[in-house]
């Protein structure tokens, strides 16, 4: 068991290292460099050369990579040459905003998805299931920005309940952000619920026809106890990983939703950084997002390890 956890941890670190390579090399491979981005249209060959000398941009790529990685390990994400500010400072509040946005969506979405999934699974092919399943397929199929646009049209433009886009700076308090966050949260929740719900529903259906549920029924266990004690824990096990994947997707996919709503989060910052050729910022954000992605998957793996007796009690491996 401990060996298993240690192995997963090491594997995660290796993955993170490989990602750092890809992120760095990938971003560096883009045409132009930070110096052209920094000087923009005023760039002359002389000033470019001077700037490259100053920031060590002429060093071979592996030297620059090692320096960059060393800085990151020390907690220094570098300096954005476009915005002329440390990357960490730029990310700061926006990261907080994104985290609040995604965590709120997850806190609403995951329990909702499980409840709806269980209801749909238990009432298979009956009216509630048909309604839930059809809605979830629609929510899954529509791209996030379409859903967002439709919601903006209905709630912001027609009903005028919420602002259509955020016009506040990134450093306001969370309370002030709240009403501008509602529409992005609803959008994210809808997409997330759809994915998780469908899996919970399928698992629930499988588990409800299993021999052990039939056995529980024939041993006189009341229906409610069958669902909560015998069926649900077994239906949830395969769901844990999908929940983690969906959350991880949420962190990455939030970029588009944030852009649509002009929400001051890390995703919007990433899109802006790419347009501005702000290499240090892109690399910094990419590393943070990858870190979250890997951490979530690791948590899911460990969680299913703890919750699944078959894995927990396995010897060796």
């Amino acid at each position, binding site marked *: 068991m401990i060996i298993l956890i240690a192995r997963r941890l090491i594997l995660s670190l290796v993955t993170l290292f490989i990602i750092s390579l890809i992120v760095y090399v990938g971003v560096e491979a883009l045409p132009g460099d930070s110096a052209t981005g920094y000087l923009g249209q005023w760039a002359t060959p002389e000033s470019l050369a001077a700037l490259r000398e100053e920031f060590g941009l002429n060093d071979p790529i592996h030297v620059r990579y090692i320096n960059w990685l060393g800085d990151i390990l020390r907690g220094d994400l570098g300096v954005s040459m476009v915005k002329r500010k440390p990357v960490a400072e730029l990310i700061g509040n926006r990261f907080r905003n994104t985290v609040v946005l995604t965590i709120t969506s997850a806190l609403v979405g995951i329990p909702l998805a499980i409840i709806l999934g269980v209801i749909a699974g238990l009432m298979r092919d009956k009216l509630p299931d048909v309604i839930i399943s059809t809605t979830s397929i629609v929510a899954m199929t529509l791209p996030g920005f379409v859903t967002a646009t439709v919601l903006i049209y209905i709630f912001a433009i027609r009903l005028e309940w919420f602002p259509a886009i955020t016009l506040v700076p990134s450093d306001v308090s969370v309370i002030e952000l709240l009403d501008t966050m509602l529409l992005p949260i609803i959008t994210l929740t809808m997409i997330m619920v759809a994915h998780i719900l469908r899996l919970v529903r399928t698992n629930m259906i499988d588990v409800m026809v*299993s021999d*052990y549920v*039939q*056995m529980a029924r*024939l*041993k*006189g266990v009341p229906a409610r106890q069958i669902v909560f004690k015998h069926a649900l824990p*077994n239906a949830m096990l395969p769901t844990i990983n999908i929940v983690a994947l969906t959350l991880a997707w949420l962190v990455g996919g939030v970029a588009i939703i944030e852009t649509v709503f002009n929400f001051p989060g890390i995703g919007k910052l990433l899109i802006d950084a790419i347009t501005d050729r702000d290499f240090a910022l892109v690399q910094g954000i990419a590393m943070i997002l990858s870190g979250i992605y890997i951490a979530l998957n690791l948590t899911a793996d460990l969680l299913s390890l703890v919750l699944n007796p078959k894995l927990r*009690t396995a010897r060796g491996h």
Partner: protein
Amino acid sequence: MSDCLVDVRELTIGYYNQKGTLVLVLQGVNLEVKPGETLGLVGESGCGKSTLGQAMMGYLRSGSQVLGGSVKFADHDMFALNNRQLETIRGRQIALIPQNAGDALTPTLRVGNQIIEAIELNADLSGAAAKNRMLELLAQVHLPHPDVMANRYPHELSGGQQQRAVIAMALAAEPYMLILDEPTTGLDVTTQAHILNLLRDIVADLGTAMMYISHDLGVIARVSDRIALMYAGEIVEDTNVAEMFKSPAHPYARGLLESIPRLNLAGIPNSMPGQPPIPGTLPGCSFAPRCSFISEICRSKSPPFTSIPGPPHRVRCDNWEKVLAIDFSQELQQVFRTIEHTTEDEPAIELSGLEITYHRSGFMERIRSIPEPPATVSDITLSVKRGETLALVGESGSGKTTIVRTISGLLPAKRGSIQFEDCDLTVEVDQRPMELCRHVQLIFQNPDASLNPRHTVAEILDQPLKLYFPDMTHDERRARQIELLERVRLEGRYRLRYPGQMSGGEKQRVAIARAFAADPEVVLCDEVTSALDVSVQAAVLDLLADLQRERNTTYIFIAHDLAVVRAIADRVAVLYQGRLCEVGTVDEIYSPPYHPYTETLLGAVLVPDPDHEPKLLASDTPELAPPAKGCAFQRRCPYCMPDLCVEEIPPWQFPESDDGHKIRCHIPINELLVDQKAAF
């Protein structure tokens, strides 16, 4: 309460299939069970016996519905009760012991807690009292260390232990009745015999009524007072055990009993032609198309359930007097036939010093030089003559499938050699020359898994033909396919069918035809009949024997059923934990002197004869790995000698001194003979 505990009246159950047509599962079933009685419900797959068992608990599979009749249990009309009322009866008054205990236990709950749940619901105990009762129940079903077992999850228990845990759960409230749905199918013979003894004792102690559902007439003979035989959703015969086995009155009962291979009769039993119809699709008797006693009335009118004078005996046949006029015990002696075939003296396959292991030393193990565990299969030296059938026999974990997989090249050998003619068969299959692959073919246990469901029979048979005979033209292959189908007694029109459109027996014939398409010298048969019904099994055994005689093919035949081995094999090798215990001809193996393990296996076999009592020698504790030294069977052997057997690998002994019979045991042959002759 009336004098019947269960009273099933004219029960008809069916479901609508995807096309919207009504398919019957049970038609007009009448059955009573008295308090404390043990009823065996027998029938082949698909006859509706499980549906009837579940219906007695007021349970229907989703989609099924009651179309007529009623089920009364302890005067409750089970299909008129609501769910809440059913919950108070199920588990408390009538409990189920299901077929696959491993699947019937919830994987995320500890075994003890699942039993406590049943106790709290049905026996009105809670807290410490419920826990004590749980431990008491686990001890009652002879589980070692109840407190340890209670804390385990289902997957941490062996098959036999899981079955015991489920029995404990069913006994929680000491119900009036137990429904047992094939509870020992899938367990090893020794485990099965132990579980059945346990059930008999418990039922006798508590006075519980029991309905035991099984396809295995040997098991039924062992546990029941009375037997009801089902065919195509109907009960066709209902009488006490002695009558059923000594003078069955329904032609189907006779056919079924005649198709079972017997330990005491050499040769292949009779097979029944045809297959059962879907219930309710024939105007007359369901069995008419397969019946040899058929008369005019059978085709037009469904026979009534008539009582035969004498002991309670009811039969659904118009010609029962004609059937009973023929003495069954004499008839039984005549149906077994041996298919003569010649074996040549030269060996087809020779295994010498074969050792196979699944263990792969990990990095850390190599660094710390941890010794390797004993190999899964070790020191196998055997020779199979051309045209001979060698059977490998043993419980699960005995290494028989491992050996066959190595011969077929699916697993590497660690040490030793496998010689086939001039070729070395220790080479894995992807490095073997095509001609060698062609000569060694494999038939698997389950045709559902070994035939591609998306290929027609023609495509399935085409594969080996294209692979091994690249010069064949399309027309030649087509002609060969039809010829192959004829050889396995299927009509040419089967070429266009998909596996899903055939019965289990037909599918296994196609799998056999595929193996013979390669025109092989050696055919490896891995439990080829264990997924089939007995009536079909006899036909497949017969077919295999015929095919062998035609081409002088060599068979290596794996089976756990010792009666099947008796029917088809020339020589037998008994394996325990991957080590040979005894090798000899069929006659030598099935009569004393035996290796203690052979004796244990033969003693545990349940034969379709109510007067036969199994002899339980060794415990049924499963072993996960062979011992590091000494005799492989030391831990379970009833005659184990503490020092000798534990320390030293036993020598081979040769009772006849000339031919192949050899027993690997420390006990001198004379002593074995004395004990065993006295016992049998």
